[in-house]
């Protein structure tokens, strides 16, 4: 219901909200992994 009600304009390059949310959460996972390996490499 929430998704359908927002028909004013599209979420830019994400195209769909589901994709936008996946991008945000994937970026977080990648950053955590990156931080982990950065800590390990330079310890």
């Amino acid at each position, binding site marked *: 219901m*929430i998704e359908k*009600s*927002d028909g*004013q*304009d*599209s*979420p*830019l390059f*994400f195209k769909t*909200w589901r994709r*936008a*949310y996946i*991008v*945000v*959460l994937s*970026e*977080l996972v990648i*950053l*955590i992994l990156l*931080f*982990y390996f*950065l*800590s390990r*490499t*330079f*310890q």
Partner: protein
Amino acid sequence: MRTLDWIVLGLTLLSIVFYGIYKGRGSRNIKGFLLADRQMRWYTVAFSIMATQASAITFTSTPGQAYTDGMRFVQYYFGLPIAMVILCVTAVPIFHKLGVFTAYEYLEHRFDVKTRTLTSAIFLVSRGLGAGMTIYAPSVILSVMLGWDIRLTSTLIGGIVIIYTTSGGVKAVNWTDFQQLLIIMFGMCVAFVMTIALLPKGIGFVDALHVAGGMGKLNLVDFSFDLSNKYNFWSGIIGGLFVALAYFGTDQSQVQRYLTGQSITQSRLGLIFNGMAKVPMQFFILLLGAMVFVFYQFEQPPLFFNPVESANVKESSAGKVYSLLEQQHAVVFREKELRLRTYLEARKSGSPGQVEQAQASLVESQSRVDQVHAEAARIVRETRGSAAGNDTNYIFLSFVMKYLPAGLVGLVLACIFAATMSSSSSELSALATCSIVDVYKRHVKTDGDETHYLNISRIMMAGWGVYGIVFAQFAGGLGSLVEAVNIMGSLFYGTMLGIFLLAFYFKRMGGTATFWGGVVSQVTVLGLFALEYILKMFSLSWLWYPVVGCGVVFAVALLVDGISNLRAGRSIPA
């Protein structure tokens, strides 16, 4: 400070005032004044959200934190992107559809007036204290570094904010936040490049990372579960999620930012951008602190980074002991520097065993430097009071003032002023909006016209600004209470979040049950705080307080609702 620094600082402050007045012109009703006519695009919303959260303390204290404690603080932000997604799905569409001015207005639609009033009162108390601190904390630091009277610094910061917020309202706040964040990011990037450039010849960025990592400063992720450990993966992802949900979903100073969005899409994109940019931004600021740490491995740092307190102790009866400590500090520093060179040479040409041995020797040497610093801090604390014994906030600015070239010092100081103003202006506008919409317009004068409410809104904004300045003048007398005020947000967020989560997800939950859940939760969290900080009965990271507060709201509300349903012969809601 050289002439060029004063010019850069002065021009930046003037540009903020004029830009705010220019962008904020034309507000003729309270929708325009308090919600910018809901005409903001996503990038203005996003920058305003980020600038509001990033206070001056973020840019003074965070690099210092990386210097002393390493980069593990970044984990505190791991819950934030998840919170942004949850808020995009739940809060944003609901707030937009109802066309509310404050988040608490929604609670009256959903529950009743007493729940709305309780929550807005909790906000006014917690954010009111926070608004004073937002001006006070950087004013102290800037006063020490510039040699100004704190009354002058806090009045200058508060005065500029009052001018453009009362003149242009939220439109001015959002646009100046946008401008201020650009200034801040530019200034911090330049400071980062300069810090790397100031490292000794032959020491590149990768070497610097090896030094920082070898000395335990790149401790970015810790997966061990420990409730008393302030910053680890679990406290960040769970506690940080609750703090971020509460801050961005229930704190009017943030909700107001995305309520100004042109549409649900624009508001959501603002939050999404914040979710993507916040963790890298904090990482970058912490990395800057780690690089300052590396710089001070080759250049002897002061024994204590607060120059005023250091000078005061030298003139006191503890002056002789302090001078001896300074000599000892110079000796242990030179010894450490030699071991650092050995470590770097071992990295280039030695065996893994030699590297390990050199690293252990270096870490041991660093611990001796830390011991001397801790002893100096103890003397400062005993001579000048407990609040004076922490110099973390002065590390970065002390470095900037001493080593950055003319012009850049002014730029970094302009960043600190801009960061203070961006947070402070959002807080003032949120406090004024809540005072007007949830208190004055709802309980005091319900039949006023637009002009009346607009005029009262301006007076409220100025009033909260004056309060912030006055608080900053007297906050020094609070001593160690200042630390408690800093933790204050976490004491109230759990209750507010619990109430909003019940509103969003428990369709059949009643207002009375939620109200009592809120009251019991607030009393419980304040009681736990007293047991921990006053009676010292246990140790719990403050990141867990919102989790506890939220849990108590749920437990009590479900219990009260269950009992009333059983009495009425109905089933328990879900």
